[in-house]
């Protein structure tokens, strides 16, 4: 390590976290979330946002406490990101109001025209004839709706956040499916390491629980159908796990070079010391049976941080609760950690908050840092029926005090996306 302590062993700027903000179905704010998370509380409930008649899955971790009217997905994604960013920037005390001194990397869910808009358009078409594409074009041409134009642009959410908080330059909207939040952090980490900026605002947000998105995951048999009681549906690593539970929320982190943070006297919340990724070329939704890309991304992260598996005290699992994911995560962890795999604590925040999809990587990075801060590991709840094929210490059902200096946080997504972050209480 360089003598001034501002560079890591590879000679790159050390990257600290100086602000964090979170919105999940458990609530708003890191304090409230941490209390509920370590109390093993579930944020999963019956869906009220739309009719669930005839659906196999009727539960989710929707965030319903921000609006009392029907809004579009991009409005929700924006609202979550805005609240998380405001909390993170306030905590960091960085920049001045409306002037964040760095770029924005914002993981957002894909958008497309939603059914409420299709139906509005269809209602304007000739009621006596079948609706055609030509009709939809004609009625759309008849009325300017630049609000809809903006809501269905992929740049919209990041654009609004960049304007509100005054982030510098062209904001980057990104998606690596369920690894998106971790990818946003990785992009910020890399930009600071390159010396392009001293600070970066990294966000993952997702407000996309809607009829069609739920049905799409359902048709892929990815979702739990154990609707009653909702709180018990998300069962990562259990033998009777039957899918993930969709959820919403946002996580925002202020990343900052240690040098910059120290110079302004900022409180350091933790460090991002490494990140690894590896894409999978096996299948669109399934991992390579040998787990090579999952193993590779964890090993790449450890190498990037300049540590070995022995230096890791806790694994914040991707842990979705699908039969496939948890099995493959176990394969990966076993390959990377060897004999220690049975002993090292590994828990899934998704057992309580559900799978916040685009936001998950950012939210779980925050919970990983809080785990280090509080020296307390959040549990995997609903762990009633252990899976003998997955002999891991999943911190079953009850939070646990533990010495935690370094955490790896896994994120795996459809499309062969695998990202692993290394988070630490000290820079090296």
């Amino acid at each position, binding site marked *: 390590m360089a003598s001034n302590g501002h560079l890591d062993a590879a000679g790159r700027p050390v990257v600290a976290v100086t602000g964090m903000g979170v919105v999940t179905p458990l609530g708003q704010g890191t304090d409230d979330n941490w209390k509920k998370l370590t109390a093993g509380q579930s944020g999963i409930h019956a869906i009220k946002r739309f009719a669930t008649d005839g659906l196999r899955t009727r539960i989710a971790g929707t965030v319903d406490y921000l609006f009392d009217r029907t809004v579009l997905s991009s409005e929700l994604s924006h609202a979550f990101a805005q609240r998380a960013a405001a909390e993170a920037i306030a905590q960091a005390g960085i920049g001045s109001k409306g002037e964040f001194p760095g770029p924005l990397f914002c993981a957002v869910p894909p958008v497309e025209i939603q059914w409420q808009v299709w139906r509005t358009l269809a209602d304007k078409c000739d009621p006596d004839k079948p609706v055609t594409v030509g009709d939809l074009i004609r009625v759309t041409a008849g009325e300017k709706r630049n609000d809809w134009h903006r809501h269905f*642009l992929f740049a919209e959410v990041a654009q609004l956040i960049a304007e509100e908080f005054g982030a510098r330059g062209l*904001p980057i909207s990104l998606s690596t499916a369920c690894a998106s939040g971790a990818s946003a952090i990785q992009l910020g980490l890399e930009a600071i390491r390159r010396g392009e900026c001293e600070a970066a605002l990294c966000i993952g947000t997702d407000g996309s629980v809607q009829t069609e998105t739920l049905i799409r995951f359902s048709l892929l048999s990815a979702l739990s159908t154990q609707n009653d009681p909702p709180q018990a549906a998300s069962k990562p690593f259990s033998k009777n796990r039957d899918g993930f539970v969709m959820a919403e929320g946002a996580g925002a982190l202020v990343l900052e070079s240690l040098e910059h943070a120290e110079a302004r006297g900022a409180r350091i919340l933790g460090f991002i010391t490494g990140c690894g990724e590896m894409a999978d*070329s096996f299948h669109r*939704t399934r991992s390579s049976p040998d787990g090579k890309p999952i193993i590779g991304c964890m090993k790449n992260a450890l190498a990037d941080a300049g540590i070995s598996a022995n230096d890791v005290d806790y694994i914040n699992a991707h842990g979705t609760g699908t039969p496939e994911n948890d099995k493959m995560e176990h394969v990966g962890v076993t390959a990377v950690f060897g004999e220690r795999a049975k002993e090292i604590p590994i828990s899934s925040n998704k057992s309580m908050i559900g799978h916040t999809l685009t936001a998950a990587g950012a939210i779980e990075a925050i919970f990983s840092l809080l785990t280090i801060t509080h020296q307390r590991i959040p549990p995997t709840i609903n762990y009633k029926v252990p899976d003998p094929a997955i002999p891991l210490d999943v911190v079953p059902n009850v939070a646990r005090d533990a010495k935690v200096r370094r955490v790896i946080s896994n994120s795996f997504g459809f499309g062969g996306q695998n990202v692993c972050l290394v988070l630490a209480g000290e820079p090296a």
Partner: protein
Amino acid sequence: MVQAREIWITGIGLLSSLGEGPDIHMKRLNDGDLPVTDRTLFPPYLLHPLAKVDFDKQIPKKGDQRQMEPWQRIGTYAAGLALADAGIAGNTEILQKTDMIVAAAGGERDSAVDTAILTDLRRSNAPDALLNARLQSDLRPTLFLAQLSNLLAGNISIVHGVVGSSRTFMGEEGAGVSAVQVAHARIASGQSEIALVGSAYNAERHDTLLIHLFDQLCYKDEFVPVFAPGRPDGFALGSMGAFLVLESAPHASARGAPPIARLGEIYSANMRRKPGAITAVLAKFLAEARQKIDPAAAAILSGATGAEPATAEEAEALAEAGLPVRALASRFGHGVEAVFLIGIAIAALAVREGRLFAPMPKVPLEQKTVTSLRQAIVTCIGHWRGEGLGVVEAVQ
């Protein structure tokens, strides 16, 4: 900060309304052919449809093709062309460490399913329950995967084996700029040695037409080139795929790969679109870029969309710069996320040839030319937000 390294473009994959591959593109551009357009698919709106393609040539498994919607097929095909052009197709050792950034949208919908459901919903007394039932029975399970933004990159991993990393940037025109800029920065700083960067856009779909039609942005007249005096407002969407293999010069040299061109500086901004903002930011970028170019051997390839007021504001800055100008949208239509990528690709091919292609008739801004083209500046001004500019140079 690490010493910046030189970056070469060593592979290009192109697919558009003009055809596939560099040769046909440059021939048609040099010959000054009129663009290929269509107003019959979504009348009266003009679009530039994809040329006929035999997708089997780059996506041999029919099963893979079935899992993709057209935008993914276009992109996966163009990515394969770029990898082959760079001489790394099938080279597992290199592909395993090749990083990937794709600029993409997504969400390609099935219009037959949507319109049938909408027709029935209007007749129903319980439309919400009917919608649930119909979506569960009518949506193809795999359609979702053809709609996810990151599944273009995912398909490239599966079909071509690019697995070093996989990132998808979204956000219309600016996503293309950011994709090139981040790949460039990673290679320049030593975070990466080789990267596949690209984008694809399918203009022949109703849902994206509607999204832009909500703001009445779509061009609905007979073809008139961008920057032609009196051209009606609006952009004509164009189908295209454009992928680049970017590589550090040492990495390319070590494996004996010749450069097509050098990728110079990339600039980006996010202006509040007050009147004059685009002219001002472009003037600033151009002033910086001009310090590194020879005006006697340079030209501007503009990504202007045709939508106002951005196009007129860009024209003002380009006229002021005094360099020869060619508008990409007049040849290819507007490819949204893919605009900057196709601009960089065409720029690289043009500087390699040392020749600026033919101007559009009756467009005063396009009438200048150069005898020997060595540098090309590519602009990309988003129809709503996001501004970018890149410099491409011939390698001696």
